[in-house]
């Protein structure tokens, strides 16, 4: 697992595509929607060349359901879309979770609700982190902030999907997808050819047929299934990732994820130069949420300001994480506008001054 690859100047969308192929992607199912079109376009040429299968599905609904079929066979599969398309995929995501099928779903979040716009937004935080589809289930949600991190996390996403037999979501946005920056490619170790052995459908030879399903009608069966899922999600909760930047001596912690976390970091650098004790806490896993780490910061008496590119979604998880110890203020940058580091200066200074 060494970074022995090339240094490329590429978009986040291409970084994700290349990362997925490096991770051993076998089947990609897509459908056009801005701002993620670079992914199906890249895949249509590169994946068949790498020995995989590319299908432009008739809809996002169909693409997500094709994942069910490919994931059931134990191969590495992926789809990508943007917000309205992700809404259409939710039915299949619920079935994937209920049937315990590993796959990766990329959402390049755009403005909403409805058709919204094609610019960046973090309006899909709830949809990604709280389930999105029907029933009690969770998807692992990884939120890269840079193109390199996008490349790295998509590789990790496949490992996590198979480790937990669960769908994993990569939550980016139009900024990440469309931004170009240097990415150093790398290829993980060869995957086990028998990935999924023991549960994948492969043909019932010398054993009874195997059924991958989410329907449990017999008495007590669904309760048992839900308990098993709950235990799995609790196990998943141990896996959290975050970035902390200058939090040690900070009076105020800014909690922000993805592209916004990165823009806020620029604001913090500027304010640090002016002598303000402010730091960044950037969750990389949105589910499971790095609550324990936030709580530790709260126990040190720090103040919190959550900044998001939405009307206030992740702030609820921040408040839950630090409840009874501290609270978090919120600044929402409304989807439809493109933020710059300057936009966050005033709200941060205001939160600092309120001490």
């Amino acid at each position, binding site marked *: 697992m060494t970074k022995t690859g090339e240094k490329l100047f590429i978009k986040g969308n291409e970084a994700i595509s290349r990362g997925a192929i490096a991770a051993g992607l*076998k*089947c990609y*199912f897509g459908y056009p929607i801005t701002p993620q079109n670079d992914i199906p376009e890249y895949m249509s040429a590169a994946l068949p060349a790498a020995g995989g*299968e590319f*299908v432009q*599905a*008739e*809809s996002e*609904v*169909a*693409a997500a*359901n*094709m*994942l*069910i*079929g*490919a*994931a*059931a*066979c*134990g*191969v590495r*599969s992926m789809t990508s879309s943007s917000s309205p398309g992700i809404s259409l995929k939710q*039915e*299949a995501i619920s*079935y994937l979770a209920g*049937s315990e099928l590993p796959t990766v779903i990329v959402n390049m979040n755009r403005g909403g609700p409805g058709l919204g716009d094609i610019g960046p937004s973090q309006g899909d935080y709830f949809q990604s982190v709280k389930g999105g589809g029907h029933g009690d289930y969770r998807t692992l949600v990884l939120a890269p902030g840079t193109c390199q991190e996008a490349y790295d996390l998509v590789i990790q996403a496949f490992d996590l999907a198979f480790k937990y037999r669960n769908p994993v979501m990569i939550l980016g946005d139009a900024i990440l997808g469309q931004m170009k920056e240097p990415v150093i490619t790398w290829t993980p170790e060869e995957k086990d050819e028998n990935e999924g052995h023991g549960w994948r*459908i*492969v*043909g*019932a*030879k010398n054993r*009874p*047929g*195997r*059924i*991958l*399903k*989410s*329907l449990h009608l017999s008495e007590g069966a669904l309760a048992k299934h839900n308990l098993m899922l709950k235990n799995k999600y609790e196990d998943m909760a141990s896996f959290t990732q975050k970035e902390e930047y200058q939090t040690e001596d900070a009076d105020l912690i800014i909690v922000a994820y993805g592209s916004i976390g990165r823009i806020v970091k620029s604001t913090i650098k500027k304010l640090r130069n002016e002598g303000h004790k402010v730091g960044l806490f950037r969750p990389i896993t949105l589910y499971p949420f790095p609550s324990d780490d936030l709580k530790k910061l709260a126990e040190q008496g720090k103040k919190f300001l959550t900044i998001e590119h939405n009307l206030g979604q992740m702030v609820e998880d921040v408040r839950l994480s630090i409840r009874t110890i501290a609270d978090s203020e919120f600044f929402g940058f409304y989807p439809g506008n493109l933020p710059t580091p300057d936009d966050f200066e005033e709200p941060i200074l205001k939160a600092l001054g309120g001490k």
Partner: protein
Amino acid sequence: MSEQEKLVFDRADALVDVPTHYCPGCQHGVAQRLAGELLTEMGLTENTLLVTSIGCSVFLYNYLNVDSVEAPHGRAPAVATGVKRARSDKFVLSYQGDGDLASIGMAEIMHCANRGENVSIIFVNNTVYGMTGGQMAPTTLVGQKTTTSPAGRNASKEGLPIRMSEIIGQLGGTAYSARVAVNNVKNIRKAKKAMKKAFEVQQKELGFGFIEVLATCPTNWRMDALKANERIENELIPYFPLGVHKDVTAEVED
């Protein structure tokens, strides 16, 4: 009893030895039996990956001794596409009812066929949503009373029943499309031959194989099994004519 006595009809190996959940006289049982017999006779059982759909057909995975995955309502052709693209070396079979295939799943079936996916789909048309209690389906006949068309299907408001095997036969990726019935011994024998063709085109990688089976739903038709079976001949076949709508193997031979 003679020593020469031979067992000439018994359950095929691909069929699990359990009672089905179907109502008395429901011809899902015949359609799935033919599929199981063919899997056995064609030596496909161990190599088959089954995609089940939503409706009474969902429990097919309990009755065929093959590996299977459950698709959401209407999405079986998309799931089957995913299975086949992941494992092109396997025999991929799906089995859908009329609400599933011809209503909620219309987009998926059309595009799966049009792409010419090398999968075989058995479509059981019994003109109602069976499992949910007999609501109007896209194939419900004009005038047919259901729980959501209590006065009978009204063509001016609800349209005409959809003839799927003709439509599927029009699509470029389809290798075989036929409509059969299982209402008498002669038709059952023909149905099995047609189903075999729909399986063979997949084996030969010629494209999409489709077979529509006209079947009874005595419970939701509010008829006994014998009356329901008569309805196939008297009402269904006149509107849904039996026959082959596309067969690329025949075109090759011509």
